[in-house]
């Protein structure tokens, strides 16, 4: 026999009514990480397809599976303690674009990543990755970017650009 099932509105969000929550805070955090490709030079359709190798796609593919379900925000104790923390999904999607070979956007996203509410707001409880239904592993995305944020602090940010070669 399975155990009892508890149904409730997502934790750490204001409740509008019944199970409906207000996800405004998440939408603003998502927008703040600039979740779109920021190429080095502006491209036009005349440039043709922006190709990448399967190896380059593998770098970010897992993080691109996020469906914005917000289960990770309900699971994260730091979101409950610090409402300004960008949170697992937004930071995982930030990494998804930073890790893309077609993207050169780390400088544009660095301020957000390095902020108190950025990657350093995470204390690595790891529950986000446990509840993720798409195996995105936000804890991995965030915690590997603490090293990136530290490199950026020491002026080594240029090492963070994804390689344009095969690896």
């Amino acid at each position: 026999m399975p155990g009892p099932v508890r149904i409730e509105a997502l934790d750490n969000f204001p409740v509008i009514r019944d199970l409906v929550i207000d996800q405004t805070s998440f939408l603003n955090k998502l927008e703040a990480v600039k979740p779109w490709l920021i190429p080095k030079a502006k491209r036009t359709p005349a440039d043709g397809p922006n190709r990448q190798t399967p190896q380059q796609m593998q770098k970010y593919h897992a993080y691109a599976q996020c469906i914005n379900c917000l289960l990770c925000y309900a699971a994260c104790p730091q979101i409950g303690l610090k409402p300004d923390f960008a949170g697992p999904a937004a930071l995982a999607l930030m990494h998804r674009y930073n890790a893309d070979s077609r993207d050169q956007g780390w400088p544009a996203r660095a301020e957000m990543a390095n902020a108190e509410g950025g990657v350093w707001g995470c204390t690595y409880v790891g529950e986000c990755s446990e509840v993720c239904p798409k195996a995105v592993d936000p804890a991995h995305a965030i915690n590997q970017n603490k090293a990136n944020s530290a490199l950026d602090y020491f002026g080594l940010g240029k090492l963070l650009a994804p390689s344009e070669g095969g690896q």
Partner: protein
Amino acid sequence: MGRHQAVARTYRRTHPVDWGRSVHRRRYMRRELTSVFLIAYALVLLFGLWRLSQGEAAFEAWRAAMSHPLAVLGHAVIFVAALYQTISWFQVMPRTLPDSQTKPATITRAGWAAAAVASVLVLVLFMVGGAK
């Protein structure tokens, strides 16, 4: 923050964070708690260094105090905590490193092996140094 306006009338649930809610939260709290014991041990060593700066008599008095049964018990507790911290921290280390083809279990075992080698090296160095 941001251009999206929050819904004006909402109900905000306020409850303290439940750190025992899941096995992952409990594991996290145990891992973090053991770091307090590491700080305690650092303070013990620093205190010994301070006593050393006060001369031989003070340092010998500190050493004698360290062999008191309570001090030995304290060291045993700190040792267990340090062991738990070492084991549990390397278990979560893989996700602090960039994506790679290396299996997480391999990274964890490499960390444990490095910790074991370093511990033995330090122990041997102290035993060799203490024998002189």
